[in-house]
């Protein structure tokens, strides 16, 4: 599961109407955008009962591509704002991206000063 690539895809499955919480948290912590899709959620009833998790059928999925270095920060922020213990009941996973095209690199203040200097 070792991933040496630059980007990661964060997939957040939340209850319908909670995508704003996810996007706000992600934007504040370094992500720059996301794609939202409507989905139908189905959970294994035995496991849901055993682990005390309710999977509602009306779901929305947010796909966010982030740089690997900010992934943990973004995931933590989303977990705090829309995680399993909140109204959004979010399930978060991240998948490695092997190649990405069309994403402009983030120019941080440090890099800016390096370039100018």
């Amino acid at each position, binding site marked *: *599961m070792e991933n040496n690539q630059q980007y990661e895809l964060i997939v957040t499955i939340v209850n319908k109407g909670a995508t704003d919480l996810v996007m706000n948290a992600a934007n504040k912590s370094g992500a720059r955008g996301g794609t939202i899709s*409507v989905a139908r959620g189905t*959970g294994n009833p035995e496991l849901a009962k055993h682990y005390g*998790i309710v999977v509602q059928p009306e779901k929305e999925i947010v796909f966010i591509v982030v740089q690997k270095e900010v992934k943990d920060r973004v995931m*933590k922020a989303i977990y705090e704002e829309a995680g*399993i213990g909140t109204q959004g009941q*979010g*399930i978060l*996973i991240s998948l490695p991206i092997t190649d990405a095209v069309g994403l402009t690199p983030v120019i941080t203040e440090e890099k800016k000063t390096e370039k100018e200097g």
Partner: protein
Amino acid sequence: MPIFKRNLKKNDHEIPQAEIKPFEQREKLQPLYAFFTIINREQANYYIHAYEEAGVAVTMVLYAHSQPPQEILSIIGPENTKKEILISIVRKDDMEKLKKIASERFKISKTSKGIAFACPIDSVGGISVYKFLADHNREIRGENHGK
């Protein structure tokens, strides 16, 4: 008496604080995969139930359209462009069962044809979510799905 007090203080400092280790260091983690299945509309229910029996905790169904080239579209017909995308979270040791379920179903007829693939999951947000997705207590319960 003063010596006793000094000794007590010294001993207090020497008591090692209980070290709290992160979950991933305390427990053996199961690698997780996102298993994608792309199939024709109204085929999802079979897969959802079969995957659940194989040990999958969560499956998401997304609705989509395929856009084949014109020459292929004329063969398959426009009604077969409506698709469903299933995203199931599965433990690595259950993945072979899912692959078998999907590949056997794809062979049944032309309309049940689809594609399936798996991507490794790098991280999961929250211990309770991980436990649910990976069915962390399965070994303790002594269950063995689909075997």
